[in-house]
Structure formats: C-alpha cells, structure tokens
C-alpha cells in the first residue's frame, strides 16, 4: 500500500501524526503568522506603502489635467523630444501620463519633499518603473491613481515602461529629475 493505493487504515483521519511532522507544521504555521503580521505592521511603521486612492477618469480628462499642470509649472523644455520640464511647488500635485510610447512631461522634484502623484494612461496599460530607485507601479487607462512620493536622493531618474505596450514598448522612456 503506497501513495498510489487507498490509505492503509480505513479511518485514516484518526491516525496520530508523527512528531517531526507536528514540529514542522507548528513552525510553518507560526511563520505564516509572522509573514501575515509583517504587511499591516509595515503599513504602520514602514515608509513604503503604495496608496490605493483611485478615481475613474477618461483619457481626455486626464490629458487636460496634465496639460493644465504643465502650463502652470513648466520651467524649460529639454531633451531630444523637447519635453517640458515641470517643477511643481514642494508638496504639490504632480501629473504624469503614459501613452504610446512616452511618459509626459519631465518632472523636477526637490529631494526630501513629498508630492501627490497622479498617474494614468491615455491608451493601453503601461508600467511606471522608476530607475534606479526601483519603484514599479501598474498604470491602467481610465483610472487615475493618486499616491505620495518622497524622493530621497538627488539625481536624474528614468521612468521606463515595464508593461508590454506594443511594438514601441522599448522606446517608452521618461525622466524625473530630483534636485537638492
């Protein structure tokens, strides 16, 4: 009688469990509790908890809001795509949109300040991947995702797309600049 055959004992539920197994089951159960605890614990003490505030929107509305943001705070244009560099006031709102195949606009932030980010897509799904900080967020059309972001170091950061979005996926790149 092996695992390929019915159980040896008819009432196998009443069979005792061996010590080694019991020890292991207790250990992994407790470990499961520890891991379960870690996530809410991090919500309380950790500084990296992606907010889930979300609104239904449309590509047209979101583009308009982003345009208004760009019109208000653009400081210069830059780069091969001549994108506006937008420097919102510390603690202010930031709009960034993903579209085939571009992140728009370039945003300039101050180190240590907290900004309210608004993120959405004008067409397909995209992946906001901030490098080398390694922060990765799914961007879904028709939904405006709002969360706070606090840069911890100055420098030039890339926003690459890490959700496949068609033939130009690998051309989709944008920038976030962090100044002292």
């Amino acid at each position, binding site marked *: 009688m092996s695992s390929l055959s019915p159980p040896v*004992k008819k009432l196998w539920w009443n069979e005792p*469990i*061996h010590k*080694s197994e019991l020890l292991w089951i207790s250990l*992994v*159960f407790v470990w*499961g509790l520890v891991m379960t605890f870690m996530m809410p614990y991090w919500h309380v003490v950790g500084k990296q908890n992606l907010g*889930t505030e979300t609104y239904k929107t449309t590509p047209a509305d979101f583009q308009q809001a982003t345009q208004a943001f760009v019109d208000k705070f653009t400081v210069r244009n830059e780069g091969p795509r001549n994108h506006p560099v937008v420097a919102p006031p510390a603690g202010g709102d930031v709009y960034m949109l993903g579209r085939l195949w571009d992140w728009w606009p370039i945003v300039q932030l101050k180190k240590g300040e907290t900004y309210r980010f608004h993120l959405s897509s004008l067409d397909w799904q995209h992946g906001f991947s901030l490098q080398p900080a390694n922060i990765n967020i799914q961007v879904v059309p028709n939904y405006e995702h709002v969360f706070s972001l606090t840069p911890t170091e100055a420098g030039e950061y890339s926003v*690459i797309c890490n959700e*496949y979005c068609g033939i130009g996926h690998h051309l989709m790149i944008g920038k976030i600049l962090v100044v002292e």
Partner: protein
Amino acid sequence: MVNTTQMLNKVFRTCPDTGLTFHGPAENLIKANAVAAVVFLLVGGIFGLLVGLTRWQAVHLLGAEDFYMVLTAHGLNVLIFWMIFFEIAVLYFCSSVLLGCRIATPRWAWAGFVLMVVGAIMNNVVVLQGNASVMMTSYAPMEAPPLFYLSLILFAVGALIGCFVFFGTLVVAKNDRTYEGSLPLVTFGAMTAAIIAVFTIVSGAIILIPTFLWSVGIVGEIDALAYRLIWWAFGHSSQQINVAAHVSVWYAIAAILFGARPLSEKVSRTAFLMYILFLQIASAHHLLVDPGVSSNFKMFNTSYAMYLAVMASMVHGLTVPGSIEAAQRAKGHRAGLFTWLRKAPWGNPTFSGMFISLVGFGFLGGITGVVMGAEQINLLIHNTLYVPGHFHATVVVGSTLAFMALTYWLVPVLFRREIIFKGLARWQPYLFGLGMSGVSLFLMGAGTLGVPRRHWDIGFAGTGGITHEFPAAAYTMLALNGMSVIVAVIGGAAFCVIIVGSLLFGRKLGDQKMDVPWIAAPVTEEEYNANGGSAFAIPGTVVLAMIFFISFALYYFINWKYLAETWGIS
C-alpha cells in the same frame, strides 16, 4: 452502438511490469494527450531559445517585432499548452489507471482533446501571422484578432471537458467498487489540480468570452482593471494547477521508486485541502501595485489567507522527501542523517528529475514567490525580469521537470517501448535542471537591478537619445541567462529526442517483463515497524527542511531591508 460501448468498457490490459490495469480507451487518451504535450513543449522550447538569445544584448538575435511575437508564442505554448495537455494525461492516469476502472465517456474525452488540439494549433497560427503579439496576458484594451481569443476559448472548453471526464471517472470507480475506502493520495492530489482547473477555466471564460465579443465589435468596452482582476484568476490559477499536479507527481514517484506511503494521510490531504481553499486567491499577486484595489484585498488574497497555502506547500516539501526517507530507512538504509538520500537512484532520471524539481521549486521558486508576494515588497519587482525568473523556477524547474521525470517511467508502461539513449537520459534532468536554475537565478538577478520584463532593448538605442543606463551587472546577468538558456535547451531537446525516439525506435516490450523492476513493492507495515518504528523519525529531512526555513526567513527580511532603502511612497 450500445454493443460497441459495452465492448469498449471491457477492454482492459494488465501491465506486466507494474501490475496496473489499463482501460483501452483511457490508455489511448493518455497517450494522445502526453504526445501532444511533448510536441508543444518542443515548439515552445524553440521559441524560448530565441527569446533568451535576443535578451542577451551582445547577441540580440531577433528584431523587435519578431521578439514580441515569439515571446507571446513561447508563453502560450509552454505555460498553457504543454502543461495542460500533460495534466489531462495525469488526470486520466490518476483516475482510470490508479483506480483500475474504465474511463467515463471516452467520446467526450476525445472531443475535448480535439478541441484542445484545434485551439492550440489555431493559436499558434494566429500568433505567428504576426498581428497577435499581445503576450500571453493580452491586456485589454490592447487588441488581438478575434481568432486569438477564440482559440484560447476552444482550448479551455476542451480542458474543461477533460476535468469533468476525470470527475466522472471518480464516480465510475466508486459505483463499480474498483477501490475500497478513500481515494489514493496521488489521485486526491490530481483531484485538487482538477478542482483548481475548473475555477481557472471558468474565470477564463468570464473574461475571454466578453473580450472575444469586444474584438468582433459586439461588446463596446472592456474595463482594463476588471480585465486584470479576472484574467489573473485564470492566468495565475492555471499555474496553481501545475503546482497541485506536480506535487501529486512527486508523491507518485516516491511511491513508484521507493514504495513510499505518505507519513500521514491526514496531514498530506489537509495540505491539499488548503490548496483547494486558498491557493487560487493568490492571483492577487499580480495586482499588488494596481490602482483601485484596497490594501485589505491585497493583503488578504496575496497571503493566501494567512499563508495557509504556503504552509501546505511547505508541508508537502517535508512529507515528500520525508516519505522517501521513511521508506528507505524501513528498507535498511538507516545509518546517519543522509544515507537514505545517498543510496537513492541518482542515475535514474525519474528520481533525479523529481528531486531537482522538489529542491528547485522550493528554494528558487517558492521562497521568491512568497517574498515578492508581500504587498509592499512587490513594489520593488513588479513587472521586472524577477517575475519570469521566479516562475521559471516554479513552472519549469518545478512542474516541467517533474513531468519529464514521470514521462521516463510512463513511456515503457504505456507504449511498451524501452527508453533509448539511456546514457543521455541519465544526464538529461541535470542538464535541464541546472540550465533552468541558471535562467531563473540570472533573470531574477537582472530583475533586482530593475531590468523590465518583455522588453526588447534595455540599451534604449532607438529612443533618439533619451536613455537609461543599467549597471554593467545587468548586461552580465542577461548574458549568463542566454548561456543558461542554451544549456537548458540542450537538456530539453535531449528529452524530446529521447522520448520521441523511444516511441518510434525503442525496443518493443510486448507482454515481456523488463529486466529491471519498474515499480517498487510497497513498504510493508512490518518493515516500517522494525526497529521500534524508527523509520518514521525523519532526521535527515528535518535538517533539510530547517536549512530551507532559515534561507526563507533570511531572504524574506533582507527584502524588507531593500524596500526600506527606496523612496518614501504612500
């Protein structure tokens, strides 16, 4: 008509090597599904080679358009077609053969098989025509031709029929009283896989049918967020079918090679029950950095409700090698901690494949999956190459290698042909396991450096000057990944050559018994009870399990530390 059905129901043969009873129609169905599986593994494996050689930036084999097309085909062929065909074969084997009964409604089973074959071929044709390069996930509102969705629906309907033939066969066995008491553990595990498969396919239908209607213009809009939620109930659960199936295969191989029985029926079955209840909700792993779903939803579902399904996997991870240790000790390999393991048949690909699958699935696939499934840690790796790195350890080192291992044993039993190229077969699991572990590790390494998945050029050559410079280590990782892919593909090709070669040219066995014993006699009660029943003390396995636990805990907390170092986000 009635007469032929009645006659078919009586066509049984007994395998001279294993003593197992085969119902004729069931046997043919198992053969057909297993052969189809290997064909799609071969096709998908070739695409995988092309993907690996393109990611290797110095080689960069394919152009962007071909790369995305081939990547789509690679994912579907190996993650869906190879896996599900093999699993249907496993389901029929674990029901009809292990229970020694006729298979229920073989005509329906053939209809299901035909639907699956038509769906899989149609899908490959549509994808290779070039305008369905939407990846396996085909995220709406990115649109594929209607035939793309239709092919998946046909395949899924076929697979669903297969699941119900399995459940029907359980009923047949019970009514015909071909077994006494409860189902064998291996059949119970297969049933777990079938249950998960039903949920998977129903979810697939809920999302793919409206998406198909949308692609032909009948439905106006597909909500992108709802698509993600429901698609992953299909996409992630389909990989949970693999987990339940390969765990059953581990138990089966432990029984086949060692005559092992579970340490405790109660513990192993309860672990499978945890899979039935909670494994599938981990589809939320894919939504952890999505907008619109609350942290409560994310935390509850990503943790399989307090990690109960993880507990189940860790229990199987102990009881499978534990049952082997107990059987080996009962048979006299009692010395020290690891004599039982050293005396295992390492030259038998059925054993080596199974054991590498067990270790690789646990250490490489399991730990990384749970760690990146923590709600906040996911922020670091979502959609990076870490994700494919993880699932190449679970689905390829874990499931695929376990299925390969079983196949070496099945071919002589089912087809009555001897395995050819035995020397090569002895090395094949090591080649494939090593190569694929390399793939997994190096993809994960690149992923921790931020390299995106499904990305043709991380050098950003075509952007007109806006670039991002990944560290040189990322390029090294991708090169090492390319080399590992080559090793793994040699291992995979060896498997296909050995199996197909054996089917065509292996020495015919007929009704003759083979020279080597093909199934171990079950360890007897007396053997287990010798030496005061000490066989059930499994010190070697406990040591291995502790090493696993320590690695797991260390890696888990290291990742929280990494997380603490990045930007503040809330």
